[in-house]
C-alpha cells in the first residue's frame, strides 16, 4: 500500500477499476446500460471493461431503462450481482417504478427472503450548461425512499472504495457519481477529480460521513461538489480567522447523524449546502435531525444553501446563479457569524 499511495487516478478510472476487480473476483457480477460497452460509459465509468470481460458481461442495452433495470432486479433475485447504469439521474422518471416499487421494496415485502444485491449507478450534477433535464442531482428524491442505500462519493479514493462496498453489499445501492468529478478529458479539469488511489482492492463504508476539514466556529455539511466548494470557502474564511469544520456527507441513506451531531456540539453553528433543490431536500433533513437531536447545542439558526426551487437553467449566468458556489458559502457563513 505504501508504494500504491503515489498512484493517481481520475474518478471514472477509479470506478472502472473497482468494477473490474470485482468482476474478476466474482463471476456473478456484470454490467448493463446504455453505451457502457465500446463507448465505455458516457462518463467513463466502464472504460476498458468490455475489452477485458467481453459483451457477455458488459451489455449495451437499447434505450429501455424500465426493461434493463427491471432485468437487473430479476437477475439479482436469481443470485446475480448486476450493476446497471442509468446514464443521467435525470432519466429516472422513465424507470422509477422499477427502482422505487420493486428494487427498493421487494426485499422488505418478501420478509427478507429475496435479496437484491445490485448497484444502480448514475451520473448527477450540473455546472456545465446541460440544462433542466441533464443537470440535476435528485439526491433527496432517492434518499426519501426506504429500501435503497444511496451514496454520493466526492473523490476518486471514495469512488473506488465505495463502489467495491456497493457491489459486495447484499442490498440495492444507488451509486451517484458526479460528472464533474470523473476527471474526463472533455469536461473542465478539476483537481478534485484526481486523487491517490491504491491499486489493491479496498472498501470504504457506505454509512459514514467524513470530516474533511476540522474547525471550531461553524460546521458546513456538504456532499460531492458542495464539499469541495465548502472547503474552498473554509480556506478563505480561515484567512479571516473563522475556522469552519467541513463534513462530506458521502452517504444520504443511511445518513450518518453521529458525525454531524458531534461536530455541531463543538461548533454550535450549522450551514448545510446542497446541489439538489432546496425544499424537501437534504438540507432540510440534516437541519431537522439537528433541530430534533441536538437542539440545545445550537447557538444560531440553522442555515441552508441549495438550488432555490427552480429547474436548472441553461444559460451560464443563470446556472451559476442557482448552483451554490464557494462565494455564496463564504458569504452565508460570514452572515451567520455576524448575526449570532
Amino acid at each position, binding site marked *: 500500500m505504501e508504494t500504491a499511495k503515489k498512484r493517481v487516478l481520475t474518478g471514472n478510472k477509479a470506478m472502472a477499476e473497482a468494477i473490474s476487480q470485482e468482476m474478476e473476483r466474482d463471476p456473478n457480477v456484470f454490467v448493463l446500460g446504455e453505451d457502457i460497452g465500446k463507448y465505455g460509459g458516457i462518463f467513463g465509468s466502464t472504460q476498458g471493461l468490455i475489452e477485458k470481460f467481453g459483451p457477455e458481461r458488459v451489455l449495451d442495452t437499447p434505450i*429501455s431503462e424500465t426493461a434493463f433495470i*427491471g*432485468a437487473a432486479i*430479476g*437477475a439479482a433475485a436469481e443470485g446475480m450481482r448486476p450493476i446497471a447504469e442509468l446514464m443521467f439521474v435525470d432519466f429516472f422518471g422513465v424507470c422509477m417504478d422499477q427502482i422505487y*416499487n420493486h428494487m427498493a421494496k421487494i426485499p422488505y415485502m*418478501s420478509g427478507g*427472503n429475496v435479496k437484491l444485491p445490485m448497484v444502480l449507478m448514475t451520473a448527477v450534477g450540473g455546472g456545465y450548461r446541460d440544462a433542466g433535464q441533464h443537470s440535476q442531482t435528485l439526491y433527496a428524491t432517492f434518499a426519501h425512499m*426506504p*429500501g435503497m442505500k444511496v451514496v454520493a462519493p466526492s473523490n476518486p479514493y471514495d469512488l473506488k472504495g465505495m463502489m467495491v462496498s456497493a457491489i459486495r453489499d447484499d442490498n440495492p445501492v444507488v451509486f451517484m457519481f458526479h460528472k464533474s468529478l470523473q476527471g474526463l478529458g472533455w469536461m473542465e479539469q478539476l483537481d478534485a477529480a484526481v486523487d491517490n488511489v491504491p491499486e489493491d482492492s479496498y472498501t470504504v463504508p457506505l454509512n459514514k460521513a467524513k470530516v474533511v476539514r476540522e474547525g471550531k466556529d461553524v460546521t458546513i455539511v456538504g456532499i460531492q461538489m458542495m464539499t469541495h466548494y465548502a472547503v474552498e470557502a473554509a480556506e478563505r474564511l480561515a484567512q479571516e480567522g473563522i475556522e469552519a469544520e467541513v463534513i462530506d456527507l458521502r452517504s444520504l441513506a443511511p445518513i450518518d447523524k453521529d458525525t454531524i451531531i458531534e461536530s455541531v456540539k463543538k461548533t454550535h453553528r450549522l450551514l448545510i449546502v446542497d446541489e439538489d433543490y432546496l425544499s424537501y431536500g437534504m438540507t432540510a433533513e440534516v437541519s431537522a435531525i439537528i433541530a430534533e437531536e441536538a437542539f440545545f447545542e445550537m447557538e444560531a439558526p440553522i442555515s441552508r444553501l441549495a438550488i432555490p426551487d427552480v429547474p436548472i437553467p441553461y444559460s451560464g449566468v443563470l446556472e451559476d446563479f442557482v448552483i451554490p458556489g464557494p462565494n455564496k458559502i463564504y458569504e452565508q457563513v460570514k452572515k451567520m457569524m455576524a448575526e449570532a
Partner: protein
Amino acid sequence: MFEEKQPAVSMEKMVWMYEQMVKIRYYEDQMAEVYMEGKTPVFNIGAGTVPGEMHLATGQEPAAVGICVHLTKDDTVTAPHRPHHHAIAKGVDLKKMTAEIFGKETGLGKGKGGHMHLFDPEVKFSCGGIVGAGIPHAVGAAMTSKMKGKDWVAVAFIGEGAANAGAFHESLNLAAVWNLPLIVVVEDNSYGISVPKKSSTSVESNDLRASAYGIAGAYVKDNDPIAMYKVAEEAVSRARNGQGPTIIEIETYRFLGHFQGDPELYRDQTEVPGLRQMDPLLKLRKMLAESESINETDLETMEKRAKQEVDEAYQFARDSSYPDPESALKDVFSS
C-alpha cells in the same frame, strides 16, 4: 373447442392440470368467503380476516396450468396483481402463501407483502401490484439462465390490459434482441378493471404484436387448457433450445369482479352466466370422465385431495400468529 378431437396429451399431464385447476378454483372460492369475514354487514375493504384489495382468478385457471405443467422449479414465473392461479400452478408453498394473505408471521413475507406480493424463491415465483412491471423481472431471470448456460425458462403472466404498458414493449424488444428464453402469457379476460379490451388495445390480440419483435406468437381461444398446453409446450421448447421469446395470448374468463367488492356496473349482467356455461373446469372434468383411463372414483379422490390441501393451508393461516408490531421495522435491509 377442446372437446374436439385433440392430438395426444398424456393422461398424466391432463390429470395434473385438472387437479391444479380444482385446487385453484377451490382456493379462490374459499378466499371469496373468507374475504367477507369481518366485512359484513357493512363492507369495509380494510377490515376482516383478509383485508385490502383481493383479485381472484376464478375462471382463469387454464392459462396457469397449461404452461406451468411444462415447468420445473428452476424455471421462473412472475405474476401480476391477480396471482393465485399462477402461484398454485407453479407449486408455491400453499400454507405460507395463505398465511401471507392472512397477514401472519408464518407467511411468505412475514405479513409484509400480502396477496399482491407473494415471493417464493424456492420455486422462483414472484408477483407484484404494478401492471406490467413483472415482465422485466422475467427478462432478468431469462438473462441469468443464458449467462449461466442453463435451459431454464422465464414466464411472465400479464393481463391483456398490461400489454399496453411501456414495460411490455421494452421487455419484449430486449428479450428478442438478446434472444432470451422468455415467454409472455397474456390472459385476455376482456377487461382491465372496467375498461373493455377494444377501448384499450389497438389490435385484435397481442400475439399479433410478436411481429413487432420478430418473435413467435400464438393464440389460444375458448379458455382451453389443452390448447394452451400445446402452444405452451412449443414455446417452452423453443425457449429451452435457444430459439428466443414467445408471446402467447389466451382468451380467458373473469367470472368475478375485478376485485372483490367491484360493483361491476360496467358489464352486462348476462355476461357472466354465459361465461359460466363454458366453465373450463367442468369441460375438462367431463372430458376426463369420458375417457377410459380414469374413473369417477379416481376423480373424486383427486378432488378431495386437492381440496384437503387447500383446507389445510387455510387452517395453517388461521392458526398462525400475527407478527410482532415492531417487526415492521425489520427486513428493509439485510445485513
